[in-house]
């Protein structure tokens, strides 16, 4: 019996103590007609050895293609120590630190995490994590609507330069509370938020403006100007940032005159492997005066009966297990283990180590962009600086190009044609610090062949009737 330690003697002794003659009797309060028969559609159990063989075969099946795909999930180096420590049983198999005295390890680690996130983002306070970047954005929107008491509209300005999947997630999560996400277009030349499009909303009632840095195109927004504009128009500024980029870019807390009010984002670049999209973690930071509107666990430093420092869950009166229907959010379990990894990751890398990593990503992406733009009719779409992604226009359809590259075991980037049809045959490419010059050359030469094949034999593609 996998994972069940009972011997036959144990079972008999236990049944005798309970005073029943079979285990099945323990279910006698359940009406007979509800009991189910053997669930034949579920496979029988297998020993670890066989499951292991199955999983290895399946993991192999997905290959390990050369990855130039980013779009919200980035292939970074993770120090070996990070996951060796994170999967220690004492971290891996503990739960929410309800008994503070027996959970000081997790609690202190979370306090250290909060400290590091505030240092990185320049904000006053951080919570102990949310599910992922997209749902963190949704929570930031809900938080802004609660916190901006001057605004009554429940409307938020959401630029199209924000990740399309994030916009969809935010919509799914906030729509039932009557909150409206109003889209703002982008400048076709620079790839930044179109300030003239923004200007048409000046003076109108919006709770907040969302400002991505970098934006989905990899492009750096004029964050000072945008933050100022939001504040001048009675809106909160919600920053949504890449935490690795924060190591080299102006932190959200310093944007404009007063800084962003809320800063959220995807924590994946801090120690989480790509792993099919999760688990990652969302982070959420804010200014101190908004802390009571912040959802999720928060750890505070305090003292014990002897005056010795210690750590505990705090401000729990915001949370569902105390406030029930009046809580700031329904979130309970968050992404503790991912935060454990992130904290260890940030401690080992340090501020300067992260800067080297971020700068390497930036440099490699520029090298990639130059290499690919050396091919005929491949060009960079937006002018101006980026962090570690760039939009490139191809001389053939993005879908065909990416498919052909995948057949060569290269993930060439993200196809923008569904979400931004106006960009035509454009893709979003990314080269992290892990993609060296040889990798870049491999991509270039394969794309060259793909382009040549398509241009020479256009009829190879069957018409799609």
């Amino acid at each position, binding site marked *: 019996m996998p994972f069940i330690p009972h011997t036959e003697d144990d079972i008999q002794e236990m049944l005798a103590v309970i005073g029943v003659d079979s285990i099945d009797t323990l279910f006698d309060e359940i009406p007979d007609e509800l009991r189910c028969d053997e669930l034949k559609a579920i496979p029988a159990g297998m020993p*670890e050895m066989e499951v292991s063989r199955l999983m290895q075969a399946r993991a192999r099946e997905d290959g390990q293609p050369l990855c130039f795909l980013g779009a919200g999930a980035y292939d970074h180096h993770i120090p070996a120590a990070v996951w060796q420590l994170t999967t220690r049983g004492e971290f891996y198999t503990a739960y929410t630190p309800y008994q503070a005295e027996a959970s*000081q390890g*997790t609690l202190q680690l979370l306090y250290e995490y909060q*400290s590091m996130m505030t240092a990185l983002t320049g904000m006053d306070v951080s919570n102990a994590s949310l599910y992922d970047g997209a749902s963190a954005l949704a929570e930031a929107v809900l938080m802004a609507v609660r916190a901006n008491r001057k605004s009554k509209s429940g409307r938020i300005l959401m630029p199209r330069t924000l990740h399309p999947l994030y916009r969809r997630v935010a919509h799914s999560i906030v729509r*039932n509370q009557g909150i409206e996400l109003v889209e703002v277009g982008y400048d076709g030349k620079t790839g930044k938020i179109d300030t003239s499009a923004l200007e048409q909303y000046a003076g109108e009632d919006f709770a907040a403006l969302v400002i991505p840095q970098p934006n989905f195109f990899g492009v750096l927004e004029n964050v000072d100007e945008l933050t100022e504009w939001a504040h001048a128009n009675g809106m909160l500024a919600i920053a949504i940032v890449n935490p690795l980029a924060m190591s080299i870019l102006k932190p959200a807390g310093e944007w404009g005159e007063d800084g962003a009010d809320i800063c959220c984002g995807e924590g994946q670049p801090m120690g989480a492997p790509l*792993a099919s999209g999760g688990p990652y973690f969302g982070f959420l930071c804010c200014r101190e005066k908004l802390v009571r509107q912040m959802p999720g666990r928060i750890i505070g430093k305090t003292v014990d009966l002897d005056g010795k420092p210690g750590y505990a869950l705090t401000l729990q009166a915001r949370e569902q297990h105390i406030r029930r229907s009046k809580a700031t959010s*329904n979130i309970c*379990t968050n992404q503790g283990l991912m935060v454990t990894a992130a904290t260890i990751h940030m401690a080992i890398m340090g501020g300067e180590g992260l800067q080297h990593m971020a700068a390497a990503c930036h440099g490699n992406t520029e090298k990639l962009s130059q290499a690919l733009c050396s091919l005929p009719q491949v060009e960079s779409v937006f002018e101006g600086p980026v962090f570690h992604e760039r939009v490139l226009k191809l001389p053939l359809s993005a879908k065909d190009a990416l498919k052909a590259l995948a057949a060569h075991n290269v993930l060439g980037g993200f196809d923008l044609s569904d979400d931004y049809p106006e960009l035509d045959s454009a893709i979003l490419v990314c080269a992290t610090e892990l993609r060296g010059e040889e990798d870049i050359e491999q991509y270039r030469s394969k794309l060259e062949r793909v382009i040549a094949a398509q241009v020479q034999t256009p009829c190879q593609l069957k018409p799609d009737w």
Partner: protein
Amino acid sequence: MIYEHSRTGRRATAQTNPEMAELSDIPDALLRKRPAGLPEVSEMQAVRHYTRLSQKNFSIDTHFYPLGSCTMKYNPRACNSLASLPGFLSRHPLAPDTHSQGFMACMYDLQETLKHVTGMHDVSLSPAAGAQGEFAGVAMIRAYHEARGDTARSEILVPDAAHGTNPASAVMCGYKAREIPTGRDGDIDLDALKQALGPQTAGIMLTNPSTVGVFERRIKEIAGLVHEAGGLLYYDGANLNAILGKVRPGDMGFDVIHMNLHKTFSTPHGGGGPGAGPVGVSQRLAPYLPVPMVDYDGTDYVWLTEKERPESIGRLSAFAGNAGVLLRAYVYARLLGREGMRRVAEFSSLNANYLLKRLMEVGFDAAYPERRASHEFILTLKKQAKELGVNTMDFAKRMLDYGVHAPTTYFPLLVPECLLVEPTETEAKEDLDSFVEIMRTIKQEAETQPDLVKQAPHTMPVRRLDDVRAARELDLAWKGDS
């Protein structure tokens, strides 16, 4: 504090290139002026610091952890190592289907298994945790009513004993949460339910076995009443461990359910997540399931997204939820198989009923002594609190000194001075016996030297913490030595 090991200029040099790449094309105004104030430590200092921190935790791997409602059972190590195979870890969430068939096969199989074990028509794996599953479930109830033009329904009914996430999730979906009292026998107060039901009822959220640790016997009748009023039934899967493979929520009449894979399917709790909260639905709610889902077209596995499922309530996380947690649950499901799943319910119930009986023998009071325990049960220490002045919190803290993580305390709120105890199926009889011994000892201490218990714990890294100060003098981030 890791910051206390920090010295200017110290670095874990094995981790980075010595030279920093140029950033000269980025305007100065957009750049950071100095590196972020993160610790500057060597790799070994970090490793030692976090190893030591880990040792200040109780965990399943080190301690008996009978935290009621959380199902703290053994997390098989194979689940971690097989979900961490390089092919799985390196798969990009937006990788094309041609490079995803292995992963998608696991997800599809897991969907199927969860469907069959819960008796639901269809399953989506995407919610990232139980609370997000609840949100998805209530949002689907809302979508169903709206699609029928039945828009006057404004209330979700929730038992007073429910998890706080239930009313909070209802509110996040734009509903009012209305509480239904629990009867003296632990079942829901049927008269109160009948009075509360009406044309304003969108649905009811129930946990079964309930949070008071007993099976709701009249579930079929409740389902009939709610459906008659035009409402739908939501099943909170927090206690699915108690009935896995024995009774299925779908057969009880539930329209929508969520499962907590970090409970029933033994994925790690990780110090507070990540979890996974897949949702299952009856046929009429199937169009609204959150995306993405995985389908099999006879040759290949394919993603179902907003495009294929236009009526979906949408997407709840950027990609496919907590995929790594789902892989762990899948490995667990394959190790157990159908017979192993049934054994989960059987042995978790055996352990709970045995432990309850033994604790009653040594003088503790059950909250519902006439009822069969499910996989967990409630003790009430009302008598001890009144007669000895030693309350549930004191008992809980003293348990830590004896090397046992305390059960859930003061939940559900309706039972005074309660302990919600869930031993789980993976604990051996001798561990349960030793817990009984510890409880008996603490009770004796409470009678003869109450201060010893009231001052507990005595052996932890810290004594009881000043929660009031934590909330009043907020210190949420390290600001230097000052």
